[in-house]
């Protein structure tokens, strides 16, 4: 060969240095790729791409469903509004409250009216039920709606222009527990009524059925909308 032994060693060393440099460069590059910020950025951009794709797909799906289901949505809305207005029968958990006149014999000279159920007694019960979250209420077979009245009509009670005699059965759908506790609250409605001997029983029921409102809705004076200038 054309180089002596001395040169061979030097060349080996030189090549070793080259190898070290190559390996170092390689390793540095690898570790840079494995660096957290680098990796994280790559990761995030990857996820962003995936999520954006997903979002676009979902948007398309929304569009498709809206086109397809607008009729269904309207129908569902109408059903919902009917239920709110009381036009459909409802059922669900709730309480049944039975109220009956007092069996106590009034003392002579005392006002006998105090021992009878009055419209305001029922109104207080109804009010209490509504306050504790009743979603629908009926008295006997009359569903209470926004324009229902409860008023004395001689010895009877008029609800939705139908007359009822005691005992009155009030059905309410809601959380049975909170409805009952609201009524039985200390110093509440039932305690007051019991004082006069009026018989009130409250039972929690799994399935209370409310009848639909049987009358018709009509506006004689009211018109829909804000009506512009007063």
């Amino acid at each position, binding site marked *: 060969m*054309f*180089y*002596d032994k*001395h*040169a*061979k*060693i*030097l*060349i*080996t*060393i*030189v*090549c*070793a*240095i*080259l*190898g*070290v*440099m*190559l*390996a*170092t*460069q*390689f*390793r*540095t*590059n690898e*570790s*840079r790729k494995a660096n957290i910020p680098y990796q994280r950025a790559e990761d995030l951009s990857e996820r962003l791409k995936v999520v954006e794709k997903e979002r676009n797909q979902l948007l398309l799906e929304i569009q498709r469903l809206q086109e397809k289901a607008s009729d269904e949505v309207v129908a569902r809305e109408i059903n919902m509004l009917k239920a709110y207005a009381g036009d459909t029968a409802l059922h669900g958990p709730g309480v049944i409250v039975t109220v009956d006149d007092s069996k106590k014999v009034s003392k002579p000279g005392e006002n006998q009216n105090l021992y009878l159920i009055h419209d305001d007694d029922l109104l207080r019960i109804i009010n209490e039920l509504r306050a504790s979250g009743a979603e629908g209420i009926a008295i006997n077979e009359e569903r209470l709606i926004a324009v229902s009245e409860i008023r004395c009509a001689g010895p009877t009670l008029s609800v939705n222009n139908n007359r009822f005699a005691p005992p009155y059965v009030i059905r309410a759908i809601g959380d049975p527990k909170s409805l009952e506790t609201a009524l039985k609250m200390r110093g509440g409605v039932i305690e007051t009524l019991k004082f006069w001997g009026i018989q009130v029983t409250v039972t929690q029921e799994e399935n209370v059925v409310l009848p639909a409102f049987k009358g018709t809705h009509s506006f004689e004076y009211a018109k829909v909308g804000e009506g512009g200038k007063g």
Partner: protein
Amino acid sequence: MIYPIIGLIIGIFLGLNMPISLPQEYVKLLSVALMAVLDSVLGGMRSAKEGNYDNQIFISGFFVNAFVATLLCYFGERLGIDLYFVGILAFGLRIFQNIAIIRRLYLGK
């Protein structure tokens, strides 16, 4: 031809097993130095093939080239001039030139 390969293998082995890792800002310097070294080695191979190999020229060329390339790149970085690319380009060109000559010499033309 066996000694350079042995040296290279030893070097790579050492480099892979060394616990040091280069800080981010020196990566460019090392890459330029690497190009210079690669060029020197190929130049040495070429001159060996041509028969006018000189040990001193080879060794000095190896270190001086690497050093000057690194220095140039360093100052370029300091001054905001990308001399790094110049080094890479120049040495890259020379590497290809050397490879071409070596190939011709091996083919005996």
